[in-house]
Structure formats: structure tokens, C-alpha cells
């Protein structure tokens, strides 16, 4: 064996490995052409090995192989030129095909023996005589060589991408060395007998390999790794068996054939058994060689499925996955974008590293993308990762807003990777840029892809679990936490404060007169009020506080780390917010609140709740719409009124609403009549810009105008035919009965004139007093119009329901006789103004109003 043959041999082995690595990847044109170049280089080295390895070979043998070596050189040059054109996105062009034609001619000539005259060894050095035209051949190759260098240089010069420039510069260096060494060798007497040109080829092979791995020239890293693993394994096993045979050759020759067969079988069984762990071992070694520092993290990621399958918590998932991915891929960081439950937007919810000291260029910025954003739609549809730098090249992303683009580009993110589950985008993993400034390689992407499917399912499960957990702890009506969760959190708070020390407060609150509200407006309206109260509580508390619906119309708030004085401020904020949202149009909504504090009011859960409840009861007793502390209850006689806004309204109103509900309940046809009359009357009063006190009086009077019907027998009220004159006389007594009832209720005394005179007529023919014109109290004149209008537009058993226009016409025709013309005009204006949204005369007024105007 000639040792000089080792140089082309090593070169040949490297090219074989590269060629076999590229071969399964050949999909694109450039990959095919690169494979051709590798094949040509491999042939060049192989022919050189065949030429050099046997110094005692015959002259014809040497001439034959030497001819092929020389013929392989232009093949290498032309195929590399072809590759470099493809690398520069150029078509093959005429030059390439002329080149291949020349190569074909040379191969034919070499096979016919017209390339090398003679070849022989002196020692282990090869000498040959060549034809003169071989020098012409060398000259023909010069334009190709120059074009390669020129194309690479132009690419380098025009490129602004640092990776591309680096990659190109390596190719320039590799090729330049090959060319220089190849041209020096035949023209340098001391070198021309040596295969030095193959050193150039070897260097070029090594540089191309490096470029492939370092700069992703082609995506063959993974195949290369596997191939290398198998070559090493096969090499080791081959060496072992060979050694075995060489150690004791006589042993086999003396044995009978069947024994040899058995031994060989055993050896092969051993080889097969040994190969699996050996493959694993070598694979580990090769991977370690490739990935070094990131190896352990990559292993961790590959075991991701096993490790993460039990995780149902997004926090935990993010804490596990983000640092591991960042380290495994060697990027500046990673973040997880998930869909926000409320807005539906994809938002960065977890980020690694969160360290604020990180350099600005490595700091991730949070990104929020609308569910309808072009990126989200594209990722959902295509399921492909997105490099922000490619955004402009993707046609579907033309709909991206400038602000979205700016946000993404300034976020320092290098790759957006979709996590999908059941074909739906459920999260996006974003990766930073590579720490070594290189680009993400195919194996990097593949590694993430491996975990993406599993991560998608885990995220979806965790989201579903979180959602279910939230649902189990949430009150459906108000969206606040529910009673069960209140107890859980209270227990937790007590445990935490017991262990670490500290304090917390508890607010209990109850909607005032809620039962009456339900009775008057119905349960649907009551539910709406509860929903709104829940919303206002939620909006009035601090971020650390927790609000709950305790049950019915009762709510609680836990205020961690809060003393009772501060809790009082929060409580008052809630109370005032709710009070401010009430208006004169409907029954006002207020709440009463009681506060206790841990540990001053007790250390047991029941004690804290009990003390807050007592304070709440005190607030109710003191007239509602106020906040009381547990300490107020303790002092009993020295009640400290924290809220000074004591008004008699709530007390009076509770009576009014209870009575009104009773009247309405007497007659199924007039159910809701008092409420509607009250609303119409308020609308008139507001349009006439009456003072607030008068409006309040009108509301109460409206609700109670028929209170006197308590004294009318039910059979008259529910009669389906016209009333007799006696019955009429009885009915006419109801204003008086009403005023008699109310005069005993101090809070309602101011409503009596309105109730007593609401059946007076403007021309003086009404009852009970026969007052004329302005002498009838204005509240009564308003009630008269409102009462008549509602009666006309409502269904009665003894007459048909009038249309709105008919009712208005009727009011107009009675203006000046039955009704005050000013009030009729005011009412018609209100009707016309609200005609579009049917506010006044629509029977569903209250519910419409609820949807539009909160709890007003």
C-alpha cells in the first residue's frame, strides 16, 4: 500500500459521506447540482486512490487510471461552476453545457488512451508523460475557474446578509485553495509527482462540510449525523470481526465447516445484538460532538412528551419548556403567546428570561396580535413557522398592519412557531435569535416540531383545565367567584397569614330591598341588577382583592394584607359606585356593607364571617346604604356611623315597593301598571325639567297611585264586564282610601296630593274634589295623563287595546278637558322623541333600559 494514496482516500471518504448525506435530500435544483459536484469530487479522489495505492501495478493500469484522474478534474471544475451558478440563482447557461461537452470528450479520449502517454512509479512516487494538448485542457478550464471566483465574489459583494456573506467567503477560500494548489502541483518539480492537488480537494471538502453545518448551506445536518453514526458503527464492527479473523487465522482453517458456520452465526448474532447499543452510544457521541453545550437540553426536549404529559398548569408548562428550548437551540430567549379568554387576542403570556438586566437587543417585548390578524390566520391555516424577516415575502401577510409589523420587528423575536391542537392554532412559541448570530438550522426547527404536536395538546388540556377550574369557581350570573371558592380562598388566606403573619379584611355586602325590586320588576330585572352590582364590585376593588357572590343578593370581598381602615375605603368606593349608578328613573339600588378583619375579629373562619355579617346587619338596621365595621357592633350603644349619608328614602321606599307589589298582584291585568305609570310620569316630569324632589315624589306616587284599591273588593277589580254605577262609586273611592293609608306613613305624606287628585279632570268634572286647572297639583295632573295612557295601550278584559297613535290621538282630543294641555304636549313630545327606540310606550321598557343603561 502506497501511503500517498491516503490523501485522496481521506478526501474520497469525506466526499462519499457528504454525497450520501445530500442524496436523500435532493429535491431542489441546487441540491441536485451540488450532489453532482460531490460525486465528481468523489470520482476524482477515487481514481487517484486507484492510481496511487499499488506501486507495483502494470503500466497500462496506471495509464488507464491516470487518464481518468485527469478527466475527472474538468468534471469537478464544470460541476462546481454549475453549482455556483445555481447558488447565484442563475440558470445553467450555455457555458455549463459546453463545459460538460468538453468533459465528455476528455473522458472518451482518456478511455481511448489519448490523455496520458505513460505512467510509472519510481519508489512510491508517480511519474507520467502527458500529451501537449493536456496543457490546452488546463487553459480551457481557466475561464471556468475565473467565472466561479467572479460569481462568488459578486455574491459576496452584493450580499447584505452576514450569514450569506460568511457562507460565500468560505466557499471562495475553499475553491481558491483548491485552484491554487491544483495549479501549483503540476508546475512545481518537487511536487508534481505527489498527489498534493488532492490536499486542495480535501481542504475544499472540509470547508464545504463546515459551511454546511455552520451556515446551513444545505439542510443535511441531520442525515449527515445519522450517516456518520452508521459509518462509525459499521467501521467498528467490521474492525472487530476482521481483528478476530486476523488474530487466529489457523483456528478457522483447522475447523470442520459446520463448526465454522456455527461460529460465524454466533459472531453475526453478537454483531446484531451489539449493534443496537453501539448505535445508541455512537449516536450519543456524534450528537454530543455536534451540539456540545446544548446537548443535554436537546435530550431533555426529546423526553418532553414523557415529562410534560401530566402537566395541567400553563405556568408550570412555560417554566419547563421555555428555558429548556432556549438553551437547547441556543437562542437569546423564548416566549409563549396564548389566546386571551376575553379578547380572543394572542398575547405573550410567558417569557424567558424575564431578567430586566438583559441587553436591550436580547430583551423580548410582549406582543399582542388580534385573532383576525394576518399572522394568526396564516399560522392557523398553514401551521408553518414564521421568521419575521420573511413577513414581506408571504403574500397572505400583505394584510398585516404597519403597527403589527413594527411590534413584531421590535420584539427581538427570531421565529414564531405555531402550536396546534386538533388543527386549531392554540399557541405560538416565539424564539429569540441565535446567540452565535447564526441562523436557526433545520435540526433546530425539527427539534421544535417534535415537541410542537405534544405541546399543542398539553396547552389545550391545560387551557381546558384552567377554564374548567375557573368555571367551577365562578358564579355564572355575576362572573365573580362563587360561594365554594370563597370558603376555599378564605381558608387559604387564614392558613397563609397564620404561617407568615399579617392581616386581611373581609367585606360582606347585601343589596338593599332586593326582594321588593324583584317583586316589582320581576326576576329577570333582578338578575340584571345582580350582574351589574357584580360588575361594579369587580371594577371597584384592587388587583389583589378577590370578590365573590356569597349567595342571593349577598357579596363578599377578601382583601389580603389589608387593615380594616383601608378595607373601609374600598367598601365605601364600592358603595358609592353602585349608588352613583342608580337614577331616579327606576327604583334606586343601594348596598349595605359590613367589614371584619383577621385576626382582630377572630382567627377562625366562622368568626370572621360572623363578625362581618353582624356589621352588615347593623348597617341594615341603621337605614341601609352604609358601611359598618365589626367594631361598631361591639360598641353597641356608641355606634360609629361611618357613612354620614343617612337618608330616609330607603326605609320609605321599602314600604312603597311592598305596597305597590301588593296592589299589582291583586289584578293580573294591571300587573306592572303602577310601575309603568311611575315611569311615564317620571319621563313627563323630566321633560318638564321639574326639580329632583318632585320627580322622586312622582315616582313614589306613580307606584302607589292605586294603593287605595286595597280597599276595593277583588270581584270588582277583576270584573270582565262594564261596572254598574254602584261599583263605579266604589272604585271612585280608591284615591281617598289611598290617601288615608298613606297619611300614616310620614315618609310618604308628600305623595298624598298626587294620589288623592290623580282622577281630577282639568275642566273640573273629575273626582274626588272636582278641582279645576292649575288647582290640581301638578304631580296629580302628570299622573292623570300617565295613568290614562297606560290604561289605553294595555290590554283590558272589557275593551280592546289601543294602538300608540290612537292613544296619543285620544290624549290630544281630551287635552284641555280631561288633561292639562301643557302636560299632554310634554308627553307627546316624549313619545315622539322616543318613538325610534320605543322607550316610553313600549311595555318592555324596563328591560330595554336595563340593556342600555345599566341599572338606571
Amino acid at each position, binding site marked *: 500500500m502506497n501511503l500517498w494514496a491516503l490523501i485522496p482516500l481521506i478526501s474520497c471518504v469525506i466526499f462519499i459521506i457528504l454525497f450520501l448525506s445530500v442524496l436523500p435530500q435532493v429535491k431542489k435544483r441546487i441540491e441536485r447540482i451540488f450532489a453532482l459536484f460531490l460525486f465528481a469530487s468523489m470520482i476524482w479522489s477515487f481514481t487517484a486512490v486507484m492510481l496511487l495505492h499499488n506501486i507495483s501495478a502494470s503500466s497500462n493500469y496506471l495509464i488507464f487510471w491516470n487518464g481518468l484522474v485527469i478527466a475527472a478534474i474538468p468534471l469537478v471544475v464544470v460541476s462546481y461552476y454549475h453549482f455556483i451558478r445555481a447558488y*447565484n440563482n442563475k440558470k445553467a447557461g450555455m457555458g455549463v453545457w459546453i463545459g460538460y461537452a468538453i468533459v465528455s470528450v476528455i473522458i472518451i479520449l482518456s478511455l481511448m488512451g489519448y490523455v496520458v502517454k505513460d505512467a510509472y512509479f519510481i519508489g512510491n512516487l508517480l511519474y507520467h508523460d502527458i500529451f501537449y494538448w493536456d496543457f490546452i485542457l488546463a487553459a480551457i478550464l481557466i475561464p471556468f475557474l475565473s467565472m466561479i471566483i467572479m460569481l462568488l465574489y459578486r455574491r459576496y459583494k452584493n*450580499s447584505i446578509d452576514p450569514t450569506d456573506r460568511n457562507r460565500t467567503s468560505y466557499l471562495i477560500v475553499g475553491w481558491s485553495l483548491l485552484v491554487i494548489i491544483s495549479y501549483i502541483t503540476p508546475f512545481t518539480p518537487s511536487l508534481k509527482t505527489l498527489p498534493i492537488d488532492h490536499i486542495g480537494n480535501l481542504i475544499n471538502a472540509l470547508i464545504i462540510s463546515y459551511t454546511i453545518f455552520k451556515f446551513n448551506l444545505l439542510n443535511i445536518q441531520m442525515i449527515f449525523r445519522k450517516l456518520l453514526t452508521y459509518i462509525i458503527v459499521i467501521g467498528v464492527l467490521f474492525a472487530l470481526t476482521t481483528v478476530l479473523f486476523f488474530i487466529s487465522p489457523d483456528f478457522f482453517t483447522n475447523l470442520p465447516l459446520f463448526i465454522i458456520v456455527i461460529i460465524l452465526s454466533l459472531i453475526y448474532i453478537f454483531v446484531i445484538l451489539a449493534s443496537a447499543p453501539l448505535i445508541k452510544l455512537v449516536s450519543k457521541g456524534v450528537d454530543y460532538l455536534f451540539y456540545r453545550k446544548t446537548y443535554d437540553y436537546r435530550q431533555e426536549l426529546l423526553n418532553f412528551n414523557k415529562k410534560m404529559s401530566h402537566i395541567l398548569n400553563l405556568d408550570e408548562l412555560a417554566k419547563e419548556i421555555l428555558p429548556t428550548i432556549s438553551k437547547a437551540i441556543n437562542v437569546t430567549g423564548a416566549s409563549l403567546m396564548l389566546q386571551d379568554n376575553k379578547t380572543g387576542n394572542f398575547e405573550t403570556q410567558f417569557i424567558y428570561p424575564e431578567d430586566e438586566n438583559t441587553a436591550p437587543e436580547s430583551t423580548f417585548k410582549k406582543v399582542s396580535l388580534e385573532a383576525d390578524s394576518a399572522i394568526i390566520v396564516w399560522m392557523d391555516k398553514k401551521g408553518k413557522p414564521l421568521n419575521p424577516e420573511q413577513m414581506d415575502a408571504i*403574500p*397572505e401577510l400583505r*394584510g398585516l398592519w404597519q403597527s403589527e409589523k413594527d411590534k413584531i420587528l421590535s420584539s427581538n423575536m427570531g421565529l414564531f412557531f405555531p402550536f396546534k391542537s386538533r388543527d386549531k392554532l392554540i399557541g405560538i412559541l416565539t424564539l429569540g435569535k441565535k446567540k452565535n448570530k447564526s441562523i436557526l438550522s433545520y435540526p433546530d426547527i425539527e427539534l421544535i416540531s417534535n415537541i410542537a404536536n405534544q405541546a399543542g395538546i398539553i396547552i389545550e388540556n391545560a387551557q381546558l383545565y384552567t377554564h374548567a377550574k375557573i368555571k367551577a369557581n365562578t358564579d355564572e350570573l355575576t362572573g365573580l367567584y362563587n360561594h365554594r371558592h370563597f370558603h376555599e380562598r378564605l381558608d387559604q388566606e387564614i392558613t397563609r397569614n397564620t404561617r407568615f403573619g399579617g392581616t386581611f379584611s373581609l367585606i360582606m355586602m347585601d343589596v338593599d330591598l332586593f326582594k321588593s325590586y324583584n317583586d316589582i320588576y320581576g326576576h329577570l330585572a333582578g338578575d340584571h341588577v345582580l350582574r351589574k352590582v357584580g360588575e361594579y364590585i369587580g371594577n371597584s376593588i384592587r388587583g389583589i382583592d378577590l370578590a365573590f357572590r356569597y349567595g342571593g343578593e349577598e357579596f363578599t370581598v377578601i382583601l389580603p394584607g389589608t387593615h380594616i381602615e383601608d378595607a373601609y375605603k374600598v367598601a365605601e368606593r364600592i358603595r358609592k359606585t353602585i349608588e352613583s349608578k342608580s337614577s331616579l328613573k327606576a327604583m334606586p339600588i343601594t348596598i349595605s356593607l359590613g367589614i371584619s378583619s383577621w385576626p382582630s375579629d377572630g382567627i377562625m373562619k366562622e368568626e370572621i364571617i360572623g363578625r362581618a355579617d353582624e356589621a352588615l346587619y347593623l348597617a341594615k338596621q341603621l337605614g341601609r346604604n352604609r358601611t359598618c365595621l365589626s367594631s361598631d357592633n361591639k360598641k353597641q350603644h356608641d355606634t360609629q356611623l361611618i357613612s354620614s349619608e343617612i337618608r330616609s328614602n330607603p326605609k320609605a321606599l321599602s314600604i312603597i315597593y311592598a305596597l305597590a307589589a301588593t296592589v299589582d298582584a291583586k289584578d293580573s291585568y294591571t300587573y306592572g301598571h303602577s310601575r309603568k305609570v311611575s315611569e311615564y310620569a317620571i319621563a313627563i316630569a323630566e321633560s318638564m325639567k321639574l326639580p329632583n324632589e318632585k320627580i322622586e315624589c312622582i315616582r313614589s306616587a306613580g307606584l302607589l297611585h292605586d294603593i287605595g284599591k286595597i280597599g276595593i273588593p277583588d270581584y270588582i277589580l277583576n270584573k270582565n264586564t262594564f261596572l254598574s254605577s254602584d261599583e263605579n262609586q266604589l272604585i271612585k273611592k280608591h284615591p281617598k282610601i289611598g290617601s288615608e293609608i298613606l297619611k300614616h306613613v310620614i315618609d310618604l305624606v308628600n305623595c298624598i296630593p298626587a294620589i288623592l287628585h290623580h282622577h281630577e279632570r282639568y275642566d273640573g268634572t273629575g273626582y274626588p274634589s272636582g278641582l279645576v286647572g292649575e288647582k290640581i297639583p301638578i304631580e296629580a295632573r302628570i299622573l292623570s295623563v300617565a295613568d290614562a295612557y297606560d290604561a289605553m295601550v294595555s290590554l283590558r278584559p272589557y275593551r280592546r287595546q289601543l294602538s300608540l297613535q290612537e292613544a296619543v290621538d285620544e290624549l290630544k282630543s281630551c287635552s284641555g278637558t280631561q288633561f292639562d294641555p301643557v302636560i299632554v304636549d310634554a308627553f307627546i313630545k316624549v313619545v315622539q322623541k322616543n318613538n325610534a327606540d320605543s322607550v316610553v310606550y313600549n311595555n318592555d321598557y324596563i328591560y330595554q333600559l336595563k340593556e342600555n343603561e345599566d341599572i338606571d
Partner: protein
Amino acid sequence: MGIEAELFKRGKQEDLWQRCCGYLDLSIEDFAHIQKRLLLEQLELLNRCELGRTIMGDARPETVDEFRTSVPLTTYADYAPYLLKRRMDVLPQKPILWQYTSGKSEEYPYRWVPVTARQLDQIEGIIFAMMILSTCNNKGEINLKGMDKVFYGMAPPPYTTGTMTRAFPNELFDVVPPVGEAENISFEERIKYGFDLALDKGLDLCIAMSSVTVAIGERFGRKGKSKISVKALVKKPKKSFRLLKGIVKSKLAGRPMLPRDIWKLKGLVSFGIDGSVYREKIKEMWGRYPLEFHGCTEAIFIAMQTWDYEGLSFIPNLNFFEFIPEAEVNKSLEDSTYQPRTVLIDEVKPGKYELVISSLHGGPFIRYRLGHLINITATRNEKLNIDIPQMKFLTRIDDQIDIAGFTRLSEKVIWKSIENCGIGYYDWVACKEINGKPVLHLYIEPKETNMNVREIESSIHNELKKLDKPYSELESFTGLMPLKITLLPENSFKAYKLRQQAIGASLDNLSPRHINPSMDTIRFLLKPDLSLLRKTVVTAKEKIEA
């Protein structure tokens, strides 16, 4: 240098194709989604600016449906108070430049339109797409090379075609004549100089108005007959060689010399509302079909042909498109207060529509009626598997008549020219007709029956030249005399009026529209039903007798 230019320079052909022409691979759903998202972005800008608030009134639309239902359709008159004064403070985004087109004579000579930096970025991509598509034969093929010789025969800034020069990657191509020089000389000199240079340097790509492309071709025929200076030929051998080649080729073919005898173009782009009129002529002269695109000052680019040179595919990222079906267009023409219904790009079916655009990327126009009647020839290009509706421009339907892309004549200008020439007439109508070349066809009912049509034609033509400069340039440059007069029979307009009365037309509609009346109207005027007139005379007599 823009991203496209960078990609071109770096030889990233796949990326360049994707970026510029990738929109051709969009599904119609993706196309509509792009439109919707960009419109929502634009609405945010409009809601914040004075122009947006003025045009949209109380409406603050946040969805496409809200936008279409709450915002009225607009015309330039709605924007004129701001745009004519070039007020930047009221716009959705500060413009980077202003461009204009001929406006309504006397009311405003030019329609000024702002262009934002973001619009200009989009335009650069579209110009690259235009160049790529005009030179390719298959999808993904880029035949452009750095320093290709490009002849640019468009009007200078501040015309829209001049704006394109601002977005054109001049540094990557050898533009003849160089833009800097070209903008300082007259249009005619520029064309002449450009082709002189092209004779010397060669020509790969020609981008010019269709009428100019034809006019140049026709001049070649004339030039072929002129004497050639030997001295000049010696001075510029390349030019001489090309000319010689052209002469030989044309002699062998036995016809006057044509541009295709001198240059073998890689691509040809033509612009102008009359593009389809000149299509075959251009092919004959230049050896290849022109790639047509449709656009205007307000919308810049609307649609473009692809390598099959058939229907024009809409461009998704510069304007939001709405389409008024033809029946609705007619209703709105009859009743100016009528708000016609529109359909969106993913709702159009083959048929005729008027185009309505809303500018994107901070542009000013909101539901703007371009006055362009187009034909949706297909909802997709089956041959090339392009899932974008295909369009062809038909005509202008507003009160203007565009001739060869040079001029837009308004009712006032035409009326004034008739008045100025002093002929006696009852009434007139005008429309554009194409019979090998675009002409302004005037139908006049004269008071005297023995008038000479040629004399009237010449007289009105001269008046138009006086009143409208672009009209006069059209003749001097292209040699076109784009006016045709037809004298209508006596009582044509009276008979029309009676017919309208008989069908119960409103007072506004008793007389036909002066500009672009329907073909039915023209047909009636040419052959009026005079029996109606006789009936009226008889009825009047009866009344008198009674």
C-alpha cells in the same frame, strides 16, 4: 433602496417573485381577508383625521359592514376643499408627495391627490411585479437582469406616471433617457431622446402609454423613409448596426420599418384606458403583446395582466375594492340622490360593474366612485389557476371623456368649444367611441340643415385645442384627430323629450345626459320616433279647435 430592489440585487429570485407576484397565488378568501384587514387599519387612521370625520360624518365604522352601510359613496367634489389646497393637516397620514390629473375644467384644472410613503412602498413592489410579469412566460420566471435598458415613456411628475418614476428602481436599470435629464425636457423631446439612446444602447423593456407606444411605432415607419446621415452612422456604430438591421429586416419583409426590426424586447408595459384598443397594433409593431395594467391618479394601481396577457388580476394591497352592479349604476345615474348597493371582491360575478375604491395605507379616498365601468370577465383565471377575479376596463361613466390617456374632457369644455365656434344648434350629446382608435363622438342637432360636417368638425377641434392643452398635445404627438361629428336629424331632441314624457320620466330626465348617454339614447336620437311629435301636433290642433 427598497426591499424588492435589494432582493433583485442579491439575486434572490424566488423571494422576489413571492414578494412581488406572490399575490397571484392567493385564494379569494385570502385576498378578501387582506382587503378587510387593511381597510380596518385605514379606518383607524380615518377615524382620527379631519378628512375622515368630514366624509364619514357621525359614522365611526369599526367593521367592513358598518363601513359600507354607514359611509356614503363619494366623488372628488367631496375632497376638493382639502385636496385642491393640498392640506396635509387633515389627511389620515402625511403624504410624501402630491400628484395630479386633469380635473374639471374651470372648476379646478387639476385634481390633486396625496401619496403617502407607505403607498409608495407598495407601488415599488407593484412596479417590480409589472416588470417581472411583462418579461416572464411562466410562473416564477424572472428574466430581468441588472442594468437592462428600460425606456420609460410616461408623463413626468406630478402626473401619476411620474410618481411611478419615484418608485422605479432607477439605480438597477439603465433607464433611457435617465430620469433626472428626462424630467427637464418636454415630453416629445424626451421620447425622441430616449429612442435615440435606445438605438445606441439597445432596449430590453419599454414602459409607456399605449398611445405613445403606437405613435412611436408609426414614426418609425415615417423615419424609415428619411435620409440617413453617414456621418452620424460612423460616429455611433452600434446605432448604425441596429438601424441597418432594421432596414434589412423591413426590406426583406417588404414593409416600412417597425420597432421590432430593431429591438427584441424582453417586455412591454402599456398604460392607458385605451390599452386594449391598441393591443394588436402594438403586437404588430413591437413584436409582443403589451402587459396592461389599469390604474388612475386616485387609485394608482388597480389590476394587472399576467403572462397570458388576458384578463387583469386585481391587486390586493393598495386599494379596497367595492363594485356597483350595472343596474345599480343606472339607477344612480337617473337619480343622483340614490345610494347604489355595492358588492365586495369575493362577491362579484361575471358582469359589468362600476369601481369604487377606498385608499389604504393612509391614502385619502373613502368609498370613492372612480367612474370606471369594468367588466368582470371571470371570477378566476382557470388557465393560470389564479383565484382572483379577472377584469377588463370598458369605459368611463362619469361626466368626463378620456382620450388616449392624454386628456379628460368635461361637459363644460365640450360645450364651450361648440359655443365658441358659433354654430346654431338645439342640443348635443358626446361619448367616446372606439373604431381602431379612440375618438370623441359629438352628436349635434343643428338649427340649419345645410351645414358642412367637416367644417364644424375642424372648427370644434380647433376650439378644443385652444381650451384644453392636453387635447392639443395629443394631436401634436400622436397625430390623432380624435373628433367625429354626426349631425342629428331635425327634432331628435324634441322627440326624445316626448318619449321621456310618455314613459313618465321625471323633469330631470326629459333631456339626455350630455356626456356618455346610453347607447339606446344615441340610437333613438339618430333615428327619432317622429310619430310622437305628429301626435302632439294633432292633439294641440284638436285642443285649439275644441
